[in-house]
């Protein structure tokens, strides 16, 4: 009996044995009193940082739901329309109720606790997750008779992550966060975040929230996020230690709490890790993780996604040796009972006629080699310092 078959057989057989329903219990016998959350003194600075991060993380979740699970949260609708331009000017305020504008820069995301740094990171993550599933690949000239490789369906997806990698390394991305008085009596505060997405569209979100607990190292809150006509409820918590920050959000549908999304962001020096887990009817349907490490000689983005049908891992690497940069992708894909792994050489090339840049992928799997030419989403701007394309320069 071969290994995959044996594993599958055990899984199928034993899953049938596990009872579907939990034991019948009366929870009030175990928890006679509902715990009342104590309101503590607000630590204004920490809270302010937190809400900025919270806003964009919820945005990420919102995007995610709208893209992949339009029916998961009942009020979710896709599409964001706003007329407000984004700004980059910064004013400061000492009180929670005044307007406070924070300007986002993606330069050094971890060294200090700063909501806008979180914001950039989380927006980056949302882009990653937006591109979670493969579309169609753009295989063009093939020197070898077409072989039906699994990677064919994933090349566009790899390219999307590559876009994000470029963005993470080199792009200066402004997002504006504004804290206002709440116009909804059930929540203490209102936070408005606006920014520009990868394709240049302006996005705008409102977050109503109440802080339920705030100490020097922890902030907890509950609230709703509104984008367009959609509303999503959430609970969130941020923990801060010496060199680590962790932000967790659970976003859920109040009418059906079995549908929810857990999002986790962990920041350490030079490392960011995002996890998004989607539960549908309490069943984990997507478990995904993205880790970004940016160092002087090597930058790496690791993507790992597991669904009930597929599992794939990409490691996109940029290594610098003798002042020369080399970009590559290692991949592993499991789809049904098929497994494939291989390596991809990546180059940024310029079209002679149009002058536009595109990605060139050379995929090698076993004896098979394939070439792909894929459009790049980011603008071709090499003229300014710290702008797009620095990843390849």
């Amino acid at each position: 009996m071969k290994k995959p078959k044996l594993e599958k057989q055990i899984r199928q057989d034993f899953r049938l044995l596990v009872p579907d329903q939990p034991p019948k219990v009366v929870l009030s016998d175990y928890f006679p009193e509902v715990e009342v959350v104590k309101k503590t003194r607000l630590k204004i600075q920490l809270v302010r940082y937190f809400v900025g991060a919270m806003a964009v993380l919820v945005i990420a979740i919102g995007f995610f739901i709208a893209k992949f699970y339009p029916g998961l949260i009942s009020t979710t609708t896709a599409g964001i329309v706003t007329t407000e331009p984004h700004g980059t000017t910064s004013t400061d305020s000492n009180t929670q109720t005044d307007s406070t504008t924070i300007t986002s820069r993606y330069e050094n995301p971890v060294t200090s606790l700063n909501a806008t740094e979180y914001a950039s990171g989380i927006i980056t993550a949302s882009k990653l997750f937006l591109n979670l599933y493969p579309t169609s690949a753009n295989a063009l000239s093939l020197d070898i008779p077409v072989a039906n490789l699994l990677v064919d369906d994933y090349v566009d997806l790899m390219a999307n992550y590559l876009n994000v990698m470029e963005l993470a390394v080199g792009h200066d991305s402004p997002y504006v966060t504004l804290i206002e008085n709440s116009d909804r009596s059930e929540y203490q505060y209102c936070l408005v975040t606006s920014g520009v997405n990868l394709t240049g569209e302006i996005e705008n979100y409102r977050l109503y929230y109440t802080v339920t607990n705030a100490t020097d190292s922890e902030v907890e809150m509950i609230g709703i996020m509104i984008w367009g006509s959609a509303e999503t409820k959430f609970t969130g918590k941020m923990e801060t230690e010496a060199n680590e920050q962790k932000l967790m959000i659970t976003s859920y549908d109040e009418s059906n709490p079995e549908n929810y999304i857990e999002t986790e962001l962990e920041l350490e020096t030079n490392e960011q890790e995002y996890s998004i887990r989607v539960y549908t009817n309490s069943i984990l349907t997507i478990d995904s993780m993205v880790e970004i490490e940016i160092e002087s000689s090597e930058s790496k983005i690791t993507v790992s996604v597991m669904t009930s049908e597929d599992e794939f891992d990409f490691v996109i690497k940029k290594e610098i040796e003798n002042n020369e940069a080399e970009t590559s992708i290692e991949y592993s894909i499991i789809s049904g009972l098929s497994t494939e792994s291989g390596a991809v050489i990546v180059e940024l090339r310029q079209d002679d006629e149009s002058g536009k840049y595109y990605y060139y992928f050379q995929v090698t799997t076993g004896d098979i080699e394939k070439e792909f030419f894929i459009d790049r989403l980011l603008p071709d701007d090499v003229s300014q310092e710290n702008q797009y394309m620095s990843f390849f320069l």
Partner: protein
Amino acid sequence: MADYRHLIKRIQQQDDTAFESLYHQTRYSVYAIIYAITQNPHDTEDLMQETYMRMLKSLNQYDGKANFKTWLLSIAKNLAIDHYRKQKRIQVVDIQEQESIFPSQTPNQYSLYESRKYLSILSIEERTVVLLKTIDRMKHHEIAELLKKPLGTIMWVYNNAIKKMRAYGKEESK
């Protein structure tokens, strides 16, 4: 690993659906841990129920420092070991003897009999790792974190277990 704080909070607020959610997210692991020790589906089912009731009883004492799933599985494991000891005998599960219980009438029953037979040749540790990996689709590093063992050990144990079962399968088919 999943964050269960949201569910725990709701359970403490007497939300039944949260308890059901928690059960659905953890049941395969709990079953795997218990079955690895008892090797008896009926006992495993009983001990599963007891595990969740014990968990509810102790939930207010759970301080959140340890990973919740690790904590829950430690309850399951302790109950299974207690049960095992109470039997005051080594549970030798003779799958051959149980063949009449699974008389090959349907493919599923026969398949289950086969699966149990393969698992019965493994040690408790091997069985635990194999069941967590297969039933709950856990990754090696998650199992390592859960069982507090080095990743390399878990990978070695798993591969060794698979090899053992395959070798056993070849012997059987001769």
